[in-house]
């Protein structure tokens, strides 16, 4: 069975979301510099929007250490 045939066979069971993600991954190409900068602007706008409602200042390193500790204790 070729790779194409295997994908076509397996994808019958995929959800639409799985198919979209697989397609996105398969079509992944290096971005042009202009696209990188445009995508970065979108990311920073979203990040600013996420931060806008936050009142507490967190310690990111400490937060990561806490979640690692919690995962280890499970």
């Amino acid at each position, binding site marked *: 069975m070729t790779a194409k045939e295997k994908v076509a066979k397996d994808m019958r069971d995929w959800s639409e979301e799985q198919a979209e993600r697989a397609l996105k991954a398969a079509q992944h190409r290096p971005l042009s510099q202009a696209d990188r900068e445009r995508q970065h602007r979108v*990311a920073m706008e*979203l990040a600013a929007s996420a*931060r806008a409602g936050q009142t507490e200042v967190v310690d990111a390193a400490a937060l990561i250490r806490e979640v690692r500790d919690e995962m280890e204790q499970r």
Partner: protein
Amino acid sequence: MILALVLEERHTEKAISLVTRWIAEGTKLHAPLLAQYEIVNALVKKRASAELEAAEADTALAAIENLVVSYDETPNMARATEIALEMQRHKKSNDAFYLELAERLDARVWTVDQGLANNDASRHRTTLIE
């Protein structure tokens, strides 16, 4: 560092400034796939403690999905193990995957974790964001 972009953190301004400069310069940004799990775990913790609203968490994740970062899915596990042992962090080897990726790509690690920077300064090119 990625977390500092989407959560109010004392390094947020510096992290934004650095990442924006790197993008403008055409510098490629990489992280181990593990970073995504760690970020999600951190956001889950903030959501569970009601310190982060659902909409804020969703927006934070959308921001992270749009970051121009390549996530590495093929760690050299043997080398990561060696690094973890060298760092005497065998109980928490997560950092070793970041360092292994940097070593493999001949890249610099940027972190807001002083512990990592102090522990690793003599072995890898690690820079603490202050």
